[in-house]
């Protein structure tokens, strides 16, 4: 009984903060209405605000991050669970776990100093030269600070998280399935394919949770996305994300009418999206667990 206040206070903090954020954003929603979400101008001096570029930027960056995380996490999961044994498995697992514990500022500094110039020279410029007729690659990469860089950097930072979720899902498939596969004469490759298709909903859930997490990533985004209120179909153009906007603008928002409230609105939108995504992912996981466990 005596633990009850502590356990409930977290819930209370969450509810109170949601209420406060809603209250603070009400002002901006009343003043600007839907115009906040269809324009990309940010000029607090004359009281003009638009959140379209950061919102689109956030979503595109997070989708890219999840894509890159998938590209690296899936092979990593299979390697760890199927191919490695004994001491090498333990070393690789603990390195992945350690990566998850590294503060994001470390990724941010590394990404802005080394990853961005690397991507610009070896990925963006060749892609632009060869495929400039595709809108995604149509703009010349000016600085390297872009949606693609931010997506890649954030993707790397969420790999440990996504991998841990995938390994857990993989392990929770009863061993009987695997034995059955080998029992009917399936090769190792075929077994892995069957195991993967069994855990597909769990992998999807891991990716959605990763998406929710990369939506909120701030430090890396600010250092790599280019911080420009620019809306473009091209992945090499600088853009903005909502957390980067908040980090950049909150310090002086107090000096302007409505600026704080507009930033609270952007927090509200991101929070709603990530709460919905997390909720959806956990429903998938729960349904999958009840079905897979025999």
């Amino acid at each position, binding site marked *: 009984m005596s633990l009850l206040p502590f356990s409930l206070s977290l819930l209370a903090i969450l509810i109170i903060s949601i209420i406060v954020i809603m209250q603070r954003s009400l002002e901006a929603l009343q003043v600007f209405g839907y115009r906040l979400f269809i324009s990309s*101008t*940010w*000029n*607090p*001096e*004359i009281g*003009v605000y638009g959140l379209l570029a950061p919102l689109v930027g956030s979503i595109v960056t997070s989708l890219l991050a999840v894509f890159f995380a998938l590209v690296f996490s899936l092979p990593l999961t299979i390697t760890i669970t199927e191919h490695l044994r004994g*001491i090498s498995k*333990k*070393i690789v*697992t*603990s*390195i992945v*776990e*350690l990566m998850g514990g590294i503060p994001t500022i470390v990724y941010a500094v590394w990404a*802005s*100093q080394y990853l*961005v*110039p690397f991507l610009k020279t070896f990925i963006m410029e060749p892609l632009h030269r060869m495929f400039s007729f595709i809108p995604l690659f149509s*703009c*010349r990469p*000016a*600085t*390297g*600070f872009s949606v693609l860089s931010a997506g890649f950097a954030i993707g790397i930072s969420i790999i440990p998280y996504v991998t841990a979720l995938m390994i857990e899902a993989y392990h929770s498939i009863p061993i009987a399935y695997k034995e059955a596969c080998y029992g009917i004469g399936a090769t190792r490759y075929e077994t892995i394919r069957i195991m993967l298709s069994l855990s597909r909903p769990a992998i999807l859930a891991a990716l959605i949770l990763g998406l929710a997490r990369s939506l909120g990533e701030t430090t890396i985004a*600010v*250092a790599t996305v*280019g*911080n*420009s*209120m*620019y809306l*473009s179909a*091209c992945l090499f*153009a*600088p853009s*903005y994300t909502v957390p*980067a906007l908040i*980090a*950049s*603008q*909150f*310090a*002086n*928002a*107090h*000096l302007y009418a409505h600026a704080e409230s507009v930033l609270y609105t952007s927090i509200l939108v991101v929070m709603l999206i990530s709460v919905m995504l997390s909720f959806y992912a956990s429903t998938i996981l729960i349904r999958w667990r009840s079905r897979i466990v025999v």
Partner: protein
Amino acid sequence: MKISTVVVIVIVAVIAFALAYYAYAYYMRQGGASELPASNKGVILQGAGASFVYPQIVEWASRFQNRYGIQINYQSVGSGAGQSMFFQKVVDFACSDPPLSKETWSKYNGSVLQIPWLFGAVVIVYNIPELPNNTVLKLDAVAIARIYRGDIVYWDDEYIKNLNPDLASMLPHKEIIVVYRSDSSGTTQLFTTFLYKASGGVWPRELVGKSISWPVEASGRGVGGKGNEGVTQIVIQTPYSIGYVEWSYAIKNNLSIAAIKNAADNFILPSKESLQAALENAEIPASPLDDFSGILDSIIYAPGKDGYPIAGPTHIILWREYEDPNKAEAIKLFLRWIAEEGYDYVLEGYVAPPESVRELLIEAADLVVS
């Protein structure tokens, strides 16, 4: 022992060893243990605000503490956040690049003191690999305004060539990458005020402020950096870029600094002398209780043939009354110490204010009561 424990222990041990080694080497370079400061009343002053003054306040605070034993904690959170914390009485004093707005000032009229206690310059930095180190690019407000509007696209634009006849053959036909501050900042305010005042209408009035919507963003050649360090880093990393930063960052990082045309049509590089020349015309109010919101206009692009045109003040904001008498005494002491001694320790990149400001500091020290 588990293998993961071993990995963690090895990594931690390596990092700890390296840190200990560097700390020891640094300690030895500093000449071993220094004497402990004489402890005084143990008063702690809390301040918050502009990041612009942070290095200077740290310098002053450590000297002041060694002398009087009064500790000064300063949080570099930005001018706006500093003002907000000050009015909520979270901190004892604030530093703000812009002075209090006229409305705020009249709301608190008589109970708040402000002094423009330090001045700095905004410099235009560029990264053009083709230009040798001993050359200086010359720019005027119209050129910079047209670059930041996105009208001038290439470095070898006729307009830039005409300003730099000696460099005309070396300027490359490369797109200019335009770098600006993504966060709202006093630096941007100084920069855009200069563009508006000096460009003869090329830079419009509505694009003046701490955080604006940059026209060049629409071309995709614009990149925002968070803070002076963000802009500095992008300019260093990106060939053919241009940016604006506080002078001290350009010195520290050895960036190429452009000479800017002042109101007397001379191209001036920032220096201690050219900044002091710019401050000669500053219209500084006679009392710390006055409204300071017009001061910026008198310094930027001021007449005078040797003055550097983009300079501005940062203000310390204080209450006239403090509940704690010890705090009031400590603040009086600090203000007097700055006026009498502190300005001997001004760091590179900043410039001490004119004589009249020292009188303002003394006057403010007399006005503070508990």
